[in-house]
């Protein structure tokens, strides 16, 4: 076993016991507050911290054995009971990954607080990920200054953040003449100079502490740099960043299948006429999970085929989330149409799995781009 995994085991127990503890916590402690999170916008900081102490957010880190399978399975357990918490679990996981892969000592010194959720950290990469593949323009701009950069601009929505928290962000650096120089990736500490703007109410994913972020001449020093220049770094972490989201989606799908089965005893005699029955969905989930766990063995593979495989798995996660959550609604009927029903919540969670960056349409666009043969212009 990897030395770091051994260390992880010494602190937290074996991967199996971590999985069991995280699953039990999600079922017993998180599930009861899922509606409070969804309906009242309760930000489950205490629950996230408990999950972190159980080892839910450390497995994928190199420091703890690069066990991406563990991270995927933990996120699946969490979002099986609450998709909003599953999503911020992903934010927490990738923020830790940004910090660790930076190899920046100042950030590595802060890594354990992130890995065990003493602090919660978010990710503001939706805009840059779209920008770098040519879908939209970069929202944050930077200019070089003594000892670092000044960053200005607005990100419309960043999750799992709050005052005194932090998140990974990317800004495009301008030369003095206004021309584009390169990109920087940094950890933005949300101090008094950072304005958090209230977001409009979304149809789901309340409780994820999602804010608009505006900065003006925000100073980024050496201690907060994740990567400068950012592009080679992003290329390196991109498949891992996307693959981790799959764990969150798998839980939404599993939760939907649970809801189909929940009413089987009472409604099975009529539900047999529905398509996308729980057994069929379960087969698809099994196949998808197997593919994801296989890709989790080589999370940083630079191969183009690996990236396409990751995008394919991620797109399939969205498609199956939509299909399974709709099927759960049809299986449960009126019961699932109640506003406080898990099923109703999960339909909205599945919509988010499908539209959050990378959305289905972005994934398909990107796969088409990657599969096209390169020819002279």
């Amino acid at each position, binding site marked *: 076993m990897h030395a770091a995994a051994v260390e992880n085991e010494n602190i937290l127990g074996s991967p199996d016991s971590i999985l069991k503890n995280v699953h039990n916590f999600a079922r017993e402690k998180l599930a009861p507050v899922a509606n409070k999170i969804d309906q009242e916008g309760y930000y489950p900081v205490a629950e996230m911290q408990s999950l972190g102490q159980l080892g839910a957010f450390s497995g994928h880190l190199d420091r703890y054995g690069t066990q991406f399978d563990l991270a995927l399975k933990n996120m699946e357990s969490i979002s099986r009971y609450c998709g909003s918490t599953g999503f911020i679990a992903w934010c927490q996981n990738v923020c830790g990954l940004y910090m660790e892969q930076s190899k920046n000592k100042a950030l590595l010194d802060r890594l354990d607080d992130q890995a065990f959720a003493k602090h919660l950290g978010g990710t503001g990469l939706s*805009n840059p990920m779209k920008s770098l593949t040519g879908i*939209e*323009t970069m*929202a944050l701009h930077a200019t070089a200054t003594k000892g670092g950069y000044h960053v200005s*601009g*607005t*990100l*419309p*929505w960043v999750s799992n953040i709050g005052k005194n928290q932090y998140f990974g962000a990317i800004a495009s650096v301008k030369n003095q003449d206004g021309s584009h120089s390169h990109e920087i990736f940094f950890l933005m500490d949300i101090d008094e100079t950072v304005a958090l*703007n*209230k*977001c*409009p109410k979304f149809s789901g994913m309340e409780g994820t502490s999602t804010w*608009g972020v*505006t900065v003006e001449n925000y100073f980024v020093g050496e201690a907060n740099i994740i990567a400068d220049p950012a592009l080679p770094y992003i290329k390196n972490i991109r498949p891992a960043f996307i693959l981790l989201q799959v764990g969150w989606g798998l839980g939404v799908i599993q939760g939907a299948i649970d809801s189909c089965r929940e009413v089987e005893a009472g409604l099975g005699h009529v539900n047999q006429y529905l398509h996308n029955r729980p057994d069929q969905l379960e*087969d*698809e989930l099994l*196949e998808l999970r197997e593919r994801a766990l296989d890709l989790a063995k080589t999370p940083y593979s630079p191969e183009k*085929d690996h990236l*396409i*495989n990751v*995008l*394919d798995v991620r*797109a*399939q996660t969205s*498609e199956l989330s939509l299909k399974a959550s709709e099927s759960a609604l049809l299986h449960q009927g009126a019961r699932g149409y109640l506003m406080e029903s898990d099923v109703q919540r999960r339909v909205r969670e599945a919509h988010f799995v499908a539209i959050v960056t990378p959305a289905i349409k972005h994934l*398909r*666009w990107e*796969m*088409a781009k990657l*599969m*096209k*043969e*390169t*020819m*002279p*212009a």
Partner: protein
Amino acid sequence: MTATKIEWQLFICRACGLIYNEEEGDPDSGLAPGTRFEDIPEDWECPLCGVTKADFEPFEKPNIQVDAAVINNNSNKTPGIIIVGAGIAGWTMAEAIRQHDTTTPITIITACSGDVYHKPELSVAIGRKISDDSLIKNRGTESAKELGINLLPNTFVVGLSAKLKTVRTTRGSFKYKKLILAQGAKSTVPNGIPPEMTWRINHFSSWHGLKEQLSTKAQSIVIVGAGMIGCELAENLNSAGHDVTLVFRGSWPLAKLIPEITGKRLLETFEAQGIRCISNASIEQTKVIEAQENQTCGLYELRLSNSELIEANQIVSATGLQIDTRIPVMAGLSCDNGIAVNSSTLKTEQDDIYALGDCISLAGESCRFVSPILKQAKVIAAQIRGEADQLYHHEQPRVRLKLDTCNLIMEGQPIKNIPWTTVNHDEQIILVEQRQDDRCVSKIELSRAS
């Protein structure tokens, strides 16, 4: 006073993508229809995400063309037969099925436009001045209508699950009852040349790109590889007035297929036409000397393995084909020079998946010619109908190179390590053959064009 009417402009929110249309304004926040962007107060907020006016930028509506065939697709509801690829193999397959079965839903998924053309024509179309219209036999959408099938053009297959009988694509996932792989093979890109610097003439679109480039003026062209396509292209582009250099690894053209006596004659024929032939050489490095600007072609410099430097306006690679194994391997299909299929039934190792054309291998050998495809399609169509006794018998097709100055005909399958016997050798005709167990197994005839 005459006011010049300025067209209404659009502005996009950089943060959330909302579009402000001057014509419509934003009445909810007090901007009447017709409010010009410049007249909006600085503290106005994006109605969707709340950023201010400074975060908006001018936006032009892109001109988007959606494929009608894609809109009409409904194959996900009724799994039928899915064919991957719309080259000769794909279309021939669809026709073969429709000859006996006009009701089973068929969907062709293809990375190209789906237009019907005859690929072998590409290597000679420029010199013979074959127009686009006569190359394209039928639009894909028309053929689809005629055959009553769904066509998904410009769609990549990204995943395949044999267990769930599902093909995943860049336009969604589709269930199948039977799947037929007819996706062909990809041209290899030789080491030493970045893909963006070299054409590979294996699709209409890339052929068309080269044709457009060559239409401006006579140019210098380096062709890498002297297999069948390389030889045909060399002669054809040379005859179109371009200055052609043929670079190849062997000691003579077609070195893997024909013996020295015929190879040397072919070499002489090429050189007599003014084609420069550089044998025993490969490309070490390629760089751009002059970038291409507007209609003017650029210039590349190639460093060869013999240290020679040559310049070219265009580089065409014809170093062979290989299949993309990602999808077949994912579906548990083994690949050996192509997707392995049963030599009689053309079924792959997975139930309900068949394959034909350039993407298959029969007993470890690929056979990338057009002529076996029709037979293969008929056998697969019969197998799918349940006529198990209709089997495929492979015969190595007779191959004739499309050259204007000589006739080169190859019959049978050349076998390594069997010596060639010269049957005839004169100024007009060279005839060689390979014999095994007192039987001619392969024969090559090279004659001057009359």
